[in-house]
Structure formats: C-alpha cells, structure tokens
C-alpha cells in the first residue's frame, strides 16, 4: 500500500511541473484495414484529449471502433494517419512495451502458465525492479483488489470476477500513467458487474491514475465517468460529461443510444428569443430552446426524456409544450408506469410516470391523452 502510494506520488510529482499537459491526446487519428481487398476505416478521424487523473469513457455500439482506438493508444495498432501523444510526447511510432500505459484486456489475457503472483509480478520483473520491492508492491496491489491468499492459484482455478481483478492488479501494480480498460466487465453477470463498477471507481480514486474505459453499456459509462466520448461508426459523436450527454444529446444517434429518448421533428413556425415554436399535428405545439442557426421555416429535431413528460387527459396550459396522442401500451414497472403513446404527428413517445401512492394508472390503452413538458427540458439536437 505504502509502496504504491510512494511510487504514485513520485510519478505525480514528476508530472506536476506541467500538469496542464493532457495524459492522452489523439490528433486526427485514422485506422484503415485491408479486408478482402477493400479498405475498411475502423476509425475515421478521432481527436480527443484526456486529462491527467480523469475517468474517461468511450461508449458506443459494437463495431464502432472503440477497441481499435484503444489499441492505438496502447501501441498495438499503428494509426494510418494522425498522432498519438502521451503526456505531451509523440508516441505514434513507439512500441507497446515502451509506452507507460497498461491495458486490461476484454478477455483478461492472463498468462495461463503462471500463478496469480507471477502474473502480477510480470511487468515489474521486466523492468528489473528489485526483488524485495516486487514482493511489497505485488502484495500491496493484491490487497487492494482483495486477492490476498490467492497468490499461488492459476488463472483457470479462479472465477471470472477474480480473474478480472488479477488482470486489473497486473496492470495497476506498474503504476502506469494511464490505465486502458477494454470492456473489462463485459464477461461478468449483472450483480458482479455492478459490484465491480463501484470497486473500479474506488480503486481509481485511491490510486489517482487516468482511466480510459471502453464500454458499450451506457449505464456503466454514465455512472462511472468524468467525461464520455460517444462513438459511432469510427467517429466521436459527442464528448461531454455524463449529465450533458444524457440531457443534451448532440446528435440523434446519441439521443437514441443513451437511455430511452423521444424524438420529434418539425418545422420552426416561429423563432424568437432563442425559442422555436413547432406545430405537431393540428393541435400540438412544442416550444424548444434553439441556437442562432435555427431560422423560421428551418427543420428542428427535438428530444425529450421520458421521465420529463407529464401525461394528462385535459389540455395543459399554454406555456408548456403539449402534444395530443393515443395510448398504445401501458406497462406497470413497480415504482413507475411506462406508457407508449402515438402522437398526432406520427411520432411514438415513451413516458415514465411515478406511481404516487394515491394515483391509479392515469390512462388506459386506447385513451386520448395530452403529453406535456417544460420547454427547458427538451433540446433541439445539434444546437
């Protein structure tokens, strides 16, 4: 424990002279593969900058280029174009064994012929750390990941969760300046996964290392990260904090990928004071804050989260957004109900409503209802 902190302290002290320098920078990074004579762009130009000590997530559907991006940071893939910088230093042509970052593989990739202890000591031995220090540091890190007493086990004699922690310890013990984790919890069941999420977050706070975390699970990214890069088809769609990603998705893709989101498109009938008015069907009206780029007559896409919407039988007051519709489905989900509502304009909305103790289900299937929400709870995508 003390060794870990001492080692970390030294590294931080060394870096603190220019603490503004980002831990990791990608500059216009492109990765092309040759597949059956065709050029496939796995990563189509990613630029981002990850701060020292940050918990940074890359989130996106399978095949969007997360792993490829991470492998370029680790040095396993050479970018076709662009630059990778670690702590201000251009490492684009530096092999992985000379980069001061460590990776936790999706499949763990533990050395099957070595004991837990030997797995964890591998990196330190390669760096010719004195035997006594290796002993102390391996012991300390195994304590952090709660594997003390399992040193002699082989990876195959351990559960998935334990193997996961060995993989984590094997990377962390080297005091890397950044830790890269590629869907580290992907193979675990839900309960273990949630426990490990807390655990990872705790460890990250404790050791203060930059974490780059790849996941396709939006909840995981939202709960753990300082910032998230939402990726799609080899590009970063949005890079922001979890709250902003959730509440202000920058693109329809992000809105669709993060949580359940409702999308509505229409034409701005009027724009004034940064608010646009949209007509939906004959009676529906939507007020939404927009940027300067939206003019009268322009197309606007609006997103609003299901939990921000109210459902009522009477027409709501004029200062809120309100659209009539027909209830298509009601699902009782314990603490709340989920409604699927077909709107007058043709869109289909999901609405979550809390089950207050005195309220029955507001509307039955087939009922005509009004959906309403505060204009500031909806966003025009891309503005």
């Amino acid at each position: 424990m003390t060794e870990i902190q001492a080692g970390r302290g030294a590294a931080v002290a060394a870096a603190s002279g220019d603490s503004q320098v980002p831990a990791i920078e990608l500059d216009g990074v492109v990765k092309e593969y040759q597949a059956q004579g065709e050029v496939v762009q796995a990563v189509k130009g990613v630029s981002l900058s990850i701060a020292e000590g940050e918990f940074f997530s890359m989130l996106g559907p399978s095949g969007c280029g997360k792993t490829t991006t991470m492998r370029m940071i680790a040095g396993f893939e050479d970018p076709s174009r662009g630059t990778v910088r670690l702590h201000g230093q251009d490492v684009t042509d530096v092999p992985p064994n000379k980069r001061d970052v460590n990776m936790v593989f999706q499949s763990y990739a533990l050395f099957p012929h070595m004991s837990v202890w030997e797995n964890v000591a591998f990196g330190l031995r390669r760096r010719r750390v004195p035997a006594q220090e290796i002993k102390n540091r391996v012991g300390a890190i195994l304590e952090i990941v709660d594997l003390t007493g399992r040193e002699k086990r082989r990876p195959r004699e351990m559960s998935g969760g334990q193997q996961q922690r060995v993989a984590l310890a094997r990377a962390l013990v080297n005091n890397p300046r950044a830790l890269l984790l590629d869907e580290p919890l992907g193979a675990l069941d839900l309960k273990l996964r949630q426990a490990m999420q807390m655990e990872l977050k705790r460890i990250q706070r404790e050791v203060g290392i930059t974490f780059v975390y790849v996941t396709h699970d939006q909840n995981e990214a939202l709960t753990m990260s300082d910032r998230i890069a939402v990726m799609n088809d080899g590009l970063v769609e949005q890079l922001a904090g979890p709250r902003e990603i959730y509440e202000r998705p920058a693109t329809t893709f992000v809105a669709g990928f993060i949580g359940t989101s409702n999308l509505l498109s229409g034409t701005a009938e009027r724009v004034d004071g940064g608010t646009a008015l949209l007509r939906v069907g004959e009676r529906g009206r939507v007020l939404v804050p927009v940027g300067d780029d939206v003019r009268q007559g322009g197309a606007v896409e609006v997103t609003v989260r299901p939990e921000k919407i109210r459902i009522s039988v009477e027409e709501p007051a004029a200062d809120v957004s309100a659209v009539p519709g027909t209830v298509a489905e009601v699902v009782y989900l314990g603490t709340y109900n989920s409604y699927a509502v077909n709107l007058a304009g043709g869109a289909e909305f999901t609405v979550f409503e809390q089950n207050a103790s005195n309220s029955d289900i507001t509307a039955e299937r087939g009922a005509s209802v009004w959906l309403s929400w505060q204009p500031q709870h909806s966003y025009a995508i891309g503005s």
Partner: protein
Amino acid sequence: MRRRIAPYLLVLPGGLWLIAFLVVPLVFMASVSTQEGDIVNGFAQTFRFANFADALTEYRTQFLRSAGYGLAGTVLTIALAYPVAYWIAFKAGRRKSTYLLLVLLPFFVSFVLRTVSWKFLLADDGILLQPLKSAGLLAQDFHVLQTTAAVVGGLTYNYLPFMVLPIYVALERVDPRVVEASQDLYASRLTSFTKVVLPLSLPGVFAGVLMTFVPMTADYVNAAILGGPANTMIGNIIQTEYLVNNDYPAGAALSFTLMAAMLIGIFVYARALGTENVLEAAAR
C-alpha cells in the same frame, strides 16, 4: 442394463483387433524369448532368461548407438521444426493450411522410397557429389553415405512432420492477446517469446518428442539404406536375428528389451513433465 453394455460394444471391434494382432503375438514372442534351439532342430521352451542378458551384453553398443541417434535426431528435429511451425502459426496468414500440406506432401510417398532417393542423391558418385568432386571442391574419397551424419540426417528428415504438427497445434492455441499482454507489460519481442510463447508451446514439443524419439530409436530403414556397418542400430540387429540368423529367441529377447527400455523411458519422461514444474520454471 443396455446402457451399461453399450460402451463395451463400442470397444469390441478395436479391442478384438488389438487382442488378435498385438496381444497374441506379444505373448507368443514373450514365450519365444526364453526358448532354446535352432531353426533346423526346432525351439524348445526352457525358460532361459539368460537370453536377455546375452542379447544385452552382445549388442550393448547398438543399443547405446540407437539411443544416441534417436536423441540427436530428436534434437535436430526440434531445431528444424520449431521455426517452421512458428512461422506457419503466426506469419503465414490465410495460407496456413497450404504450408501445412507442403510440410506433409513428401509423406504421401513411401518411407522406404524417400530414403532410397536420399541414397541416390547422396551417393559417392551421385548427382550431388560427383560434380563437386570433378570441380576439385571435394576430396575424391569424400562421402556422405555410410556415416553417422547420413543416418541421423535421414532420421531427422523422415520424422520432421511428427514434430512440426504438434508444435504447430500448440502454437496455434496460444491466445494472441496473451502475447500482446506481455508486450504491454514491457516485454521485448524476445522476452515475450521466451516467457510466454515458448512455455505455452512446450506441451507440443513434448508430444513431438514422444512421437519422434520412440520410432527413431527403433528405426532400421535409415541405418540399412543410408548407413554402413559402423552405423548399425538395434532395429537392424533384431531384423538380422529374425530373418538372417533365424535366431528367434535372441530376436525376441532384443525386441522385449527395447520395448521395456522405451516404456521406462516414456514413463520417466511423462512423470518429469506431467507436473507443472517445467512451466513454473519457465515462468521466471
């Protein structure tokens, strides 16, 4: 009841085959090995165990030579097969099966025919040595045949695929991510090989050793075709005792001694490797 019988029924054809063509002759040979007599007057069972001692003392040299050739051949086979298997497993890309087939291709031709071709190629006045001798590059009395090198070379050549295949299979099974993990943990390419790839492929090498050392040591074709009188192996002696001298008890005693030596050797070898000591040593 039926379900208990079924497994035995499955074993039956193969089992009968083994009993008829392996166990019966073995028992017969075991009985011959302690008999006395000659081909003209016939052999009689006298339980003369001294046949074994006689055989062993008389042909001690050939026994040791066979073990030596087998060992040398095995070591050479590993040295040649490992790089080939490594290259096919990691560098051959989508052509893997083509190259594997190429390794096996010569073995669609009979063992004896291939060895005879070597004899033809390496003959003193053959197509390889003759031109070199005429050009004065080699001494007139230079020869390859009838030497230890020729026999060990023949053995190595003939058993190469039995080493390439198991090593290839073991290398194929090494997870590339595990190799990357070692590089991520600061191992150079060489260290990554010695600490990860090599230890993980050792089971393939061990299997290959078993599949080459045993038949090489018992081989008689290579010594007969490529070797001379000074290269006689125990297999040749057994053949001579049976087919030339018609001394069946001596031949049987030699065969059993060879078999026992092999079995003990394999047992010791398996015991030494069966534990994970080797791997643990490799992990350091």
